[in-house]
């Protein structure tokens, strides 16, 4: 009997665990270790943040689903990796610490034959002094953050109703933050809700971003066929913001947040501030603070993990200038180069480099979005790793039958711009591949025929449809495995 341990139960980890169990059946063991007892459909947190969905519409408890599937679930956080075992154990194991119930605080060594690290990002609010819930800004990165954000936003709405102008600041809260798409959606949804309440004239909404140009989204922007032209997402994004009367500050790295004031440095080296009454700013991401040890107990963290805490996989990490980057450097199997029975999927793998061109201000501050790996790439990488591991266990082979490079796969991003079945809006964007392949597509870096950028009610329907479809899939309802990632 083989034992596969999956760390994390987000989009990638849950996908990996569900397919592993389906393919391996009861003959083999699948264990999920996650400190959060809920699965959450992160893309819908935006709607929690504007009061259009309740927390329980975007999450559900994991234990019932795992019980039904026969997956062992441990509500705990992983602390240490021991890929060679230790002096007492020859089997590799991870040390975990329980976070709830009677076992809270207890530690356990969980052995494995295969390990999937799908622990996602650590929301690094500490990288920007004053940033984050409980300090001076809000977040929509998790359902509880989004719910708090909605509470704070309601205070601002109340102030507007009482005749007070409100300054709303939405965007990135660190010079290297990613997930611009989520913040962008939030800005548009707020604008839509204020329009619905006839309060638009009482709000000054500002979009602040570390992107060189709007529409970069951490993937170097994109080009779409639109209105008889091939147009950059810069134009597309500026148009959407202008239409919603949202002003913008670009090339800005937020360095500090105080009560009602965001401090930022621009790529030209200017030190500026922006006053606000309400701010939702996305933090920087980093890997979880794992430690790794070899059999003798020597610290091998730097061998297994990159300096940012994400796990090294089959990517080419040789430092190169932006002009020399190619899609070949991006991982295909997500296997650790030092321990072949370890994989990292979703946001947990260390990308070889960014996708957007690195930029620095005259003071040396790097103001560049990090590469996104959320949503579709998270699900796809979780699935192919599960397929490969199941194949190895069942057939005793070591060749990876399934691969998924971000330099080959495309992605669809549905940006909600207002929640309503008849008046709502969504911007539908597709790119293929995610990482521009300048060798294959020398003009635009991507397949222009596969790239879409459209705004309309259909986009809202698609986003809502995807919400219900992915919740259906994650709950393991009938034919869940037929639904794509």
């Amino acid at each position: 009997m083989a034992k596969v341990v999956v760390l994390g139960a987000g989009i990638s980890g849950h996908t990996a665990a569900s397919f592993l169990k389906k393919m391996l059946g009861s003959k083999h063991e699948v264990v999920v270790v996650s400190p959060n007892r809920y699965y959450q459909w992160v893309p819908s947190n935006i709607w929690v943040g504007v009061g259009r969905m309740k927390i329980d519409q975007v999450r559900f408890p994991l234990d019932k689903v795992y019980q039904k599937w026969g997956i062992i679930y441990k509500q705990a956080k992983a602390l240490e990796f021991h890929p060679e075992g230790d002096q007492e154990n020859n089997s590799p194991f991870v040390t975990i610490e329980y976070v709830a119930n009677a076992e809270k605080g207890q530690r356990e060594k969980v052995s494995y034959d295969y390990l999937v690290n799908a622990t996602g990002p650590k929301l690094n609010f500490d990288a920007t002094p004053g940033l984050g819930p409980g300090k001076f800004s809000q977040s929509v990165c998790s359902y509880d953050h989004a719910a708090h954000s909605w509470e704070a936003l309601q205070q601002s709405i109340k102030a507007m109703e009482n005749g007070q102008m409100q300054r709303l600041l939405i965007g990135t809260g660190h010079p290297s933050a990613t997930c611009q798409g989520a913040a962008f959606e939030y800005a548009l949804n707020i604008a839509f809700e204020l329009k619905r309440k006839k309060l638009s004239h009482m709000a000054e909404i500002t979009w602040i971003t570390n992107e060189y140009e709007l529409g970069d989204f951490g993937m170097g922007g994109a080009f779409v066929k639109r209105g008889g032209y091939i147009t950059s997402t810069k134009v597309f994004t500026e148009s959407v913001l202008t239409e919603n009367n949202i002003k913008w500050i670009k090339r800005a790295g937020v360095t500090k947040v105080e009560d009602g004031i965001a401090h930022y440095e621009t790529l030209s080296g200017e030190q500026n501030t922006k006053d606000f009454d309400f701010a939702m700013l996305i933090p920087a991401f980093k890997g979880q603070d794992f430690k790794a040890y070899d059999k003798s107990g020597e610290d091998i963290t730097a061998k297994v993990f990159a300096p940012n805490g994400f796990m090294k996989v089959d990517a080419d990490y040789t430092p190169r200038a932006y002009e020399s980057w190619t899609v070949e450097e991006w991982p295909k199997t997500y296997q650790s180069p030092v321990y072949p029975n370890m994989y990292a999927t979703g946001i947990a793998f260390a990308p070889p480099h960014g996708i957007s061109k690195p930029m620095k201000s005259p003071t040396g501050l790097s103001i560049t979005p990090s590469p996104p790996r959320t949503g579709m790439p998270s699900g796809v990488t979780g699935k192919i790793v599960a397929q490969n591991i199941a194949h190895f266990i069942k057939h005793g082979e070591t060749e990876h039958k399934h691969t998924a490079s971000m330099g080959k796969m495309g992605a669809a991003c549905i940006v909600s711009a207002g929640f309503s079945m008849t008046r709502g809006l969504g911007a539908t964007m597709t790119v293929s591949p995610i990482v521009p392949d300048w060798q294959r597509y020398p003009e635009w870096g991507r397949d222009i025929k596969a790239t879409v950028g459209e705004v309309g009610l259909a986009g809202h329907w698609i986003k809502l449809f995807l919400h219900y479809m992915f919740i259906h899939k994650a709950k393991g309802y009938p034919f869940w495995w037929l639904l794509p990632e």
Partner: protein
Amino acid sequence: MEKKIEIRAYKDEFYPPVPTKATKFWRTNLVYQIYKFLRLNYKIMRIVVKGHS
């Protein structure tokens, strides 16, 4: 009291294209959007299928 007019000329938000009344109408026209819903889903599925090797 004289209404204060905000002049946007020469500001960033002065230059991007903005949708016309007709564009806004078609964005929420139910029949057209049902067609768009089907077409966009087809385009997304093509990308999704290509992404799974």
